[in-house]
């Protein structure tokens, strides 16, 4: 029961549900006369209503549908991970050689070889998700190790907070860092009171309640940011 209460208390609302929504205006009606206070409309000769009645207002601009999301290809993903981590990729050392696992697994991940396959498979398939998870864990582990030792200006993860910061001991630093990370990883610039931050502060609250260490929480934040569709779908 206690656990259930905790889960309910910690569950967050979708950020977009809380975004300020412009209430839909009244449906423009072609037969409504402009109010007396409205500015006169210049109408070229011959455009008016042939019956001498009400002028037809100009067509409203077509509603712009958002484009369907698309998955990054492997090169973009490899690049994006290196970009957000400050150069850390998904690699493995084999003896003295550093192997890029995105290159090694390219065929399985659907990259074209231009022999049997001429276009990249961009479905976010189970295979893609598994290896994205591996890539995120691997690069985040390295990032957690390396980033605190970088000069402040060169840090890409602990930009506004320290690895030991939590909501309890420094809420402001955690929230500022989360906003910086959401900008870096997802390209979302959020104000301090933006509802989009809520899932991530909720994540921190949950981590504290479930006894995850501060370092473990930041590592999990890193993996979540990288495996979140806002990172690899655009």
């Amino acid at each position, binding site marked *: 029961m206690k656990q259930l209460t905790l889960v309910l208390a910690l569950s967050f609302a979708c950020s977009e549900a809380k975004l300020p929504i412009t209430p839909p205006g009244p449906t423009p009606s072609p037969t409504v006369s402009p109010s007396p206070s409205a500015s006169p409309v210049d109408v070229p000769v011959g455009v008016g209503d042939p019956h001498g009645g009400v002028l037809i207002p100009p067509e409203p601009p077509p509603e712009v549908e958002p484009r369907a999301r698309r*998955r990054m290809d492997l090169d973009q993903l490899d690049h994006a991970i290196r970009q957000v981590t400050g150069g850390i990729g998904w690699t493995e050392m084999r003896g003295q050689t550093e192997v890029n696992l995105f290159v090694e697994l390219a065929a399985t991940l659907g990259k074209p070889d231009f022999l049997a396959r001429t276009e990249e498979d961009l479905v976010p398939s189970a295979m893609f998700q598994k290896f994205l998870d591996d890539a995120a864990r691997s690069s985040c582990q390295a990032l957690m190790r390396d980033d605190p030792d970088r000069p402040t200006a060169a840090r890409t993860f602990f930009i506004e907070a320290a690895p030991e910061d939590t909501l309890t001991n420094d809420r402001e630093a955690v929230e500022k860092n989360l906003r910086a990370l959401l900008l870096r990883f997802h390209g979302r610039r959020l104000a301090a009171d933006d509802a989009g931050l809520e899932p991530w502060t909720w*994540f921190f609250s949950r981590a504290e309640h479930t006894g995850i260490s501060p370092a473990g929480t930041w590592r999990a934040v890193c993996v979540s940011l990288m495996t979140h*569709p806002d990172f690899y779908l655009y």
Partner: protein
Amino acid sequence: MLTRRQLLKIGGTTLGGVALGGSWARLAHAAASDMRFVFAYFSGGWDILLGLDPRDPVEFSSEDISATLIQPGYELLQNRPNAGLIRAGGLTFGPFIGELTRHADKMAVIRGMSMETLTHEAGRRRFITGKPPSGLLARGSSIATFLASKLGEDHPIPNLAIRVESYNVDQPSYATALAASGVPDLVRALRPAEPKLTPAEDGAIDALLAESARCNSALRSPAWRVAEASRLKAREMTTKNLAGLFDLTNNDALRTRYGVPAGAAGLGSPEAQAAMAAQAIMGNVSRAVSIEATSGLDTHFREWTTDQGPRQERGFNAIARLADHLAASEYQGTGQSWLDHTIIVGFSEFSRTPLINAREGRDHSLTNASFILGAGIRGGVTVGASSDVGMQPQPVDLATGRVDMGGQVPRPEHVLQTMLELAGISGDPDDLRVPPIRAMMR
């Protein structure tokens, strides 16, 4: 115990197709849902004169080439002196059919099939989907995807594809193939995520991603919905300890049974893929498995004389060992074998010209052949024939399998429709628009 066909026969003759309802329908469905499918792709365009559609070199001699437009060319094969026809179980094969003769009594061969293309991608996608591609783009889901979708999502990886393309354009996401370019990549994909996090960290990540996927922006996005379903599938796969099942590096018995070559290179071999297919089927991991039984068959030049036959034979041998393994393993305590519940189809994108070109190779020919063996197949049956002049496709009576000018020219979709029928899926739900080949159904 009644077989599925017996049940269908009862339904068709006494109860009528429409009246087959209630418990009868459930029984019939249960039988059909016991089927597994293996698609064995011979990559590059096989020379059917060396395997599935041979000609007697005495009858089709070099002197008569101008009349027959067929040149078996067996005397030119550098590694099989005195090559000739091989007969087994009522079927006649070319010199490189290999160990597949052991299963001739459970196998049907379709000949004189038209692929309607000379392009690798188009032929491959035609066979995989049963629909002519639009240009090079597959038009429709793979038949393996369709079967996996109809047979349910109970298995951890309903549809597994190693080195074979797979498409899902209109089926549920659980039916999408887990596609890998080799057995090692598959093993890596099935291992738990690494490096490991604490269970609490895993739980927090999972909760955040799951909550995000329930938001409106996620639900409105088809890509996000697929991504979330795939994420859950990936998590399920990695928690079932399946990697060990496919890890051949420490399974000497399996490597020996299939003749998997030593070393890491062996893990990409046809033998390793056949072993992987057996593990997926008999481990109850998958309902549909696609493998590349062999590759390098696109022999336009002199390598036809050295490589075409042995490469085909290696693929046939791998499939024969898979069939051996399935036939020798009891199906879930029923007294039947796994082969009694599995259909294996062997295909290539097209075949090669019956005349040898000026470079001692063979070019692309749209006349093709295919084999299908296992559950519900009438063994030792040949359906259709390529013509004795130029090996052209010919119409066939689909009920008798004999050449009949009033019949239909066999195409890949006929073979696929037959598989659906054997799986108990009637009424052409995959829109293949052809009837099954009843001549090869028991």
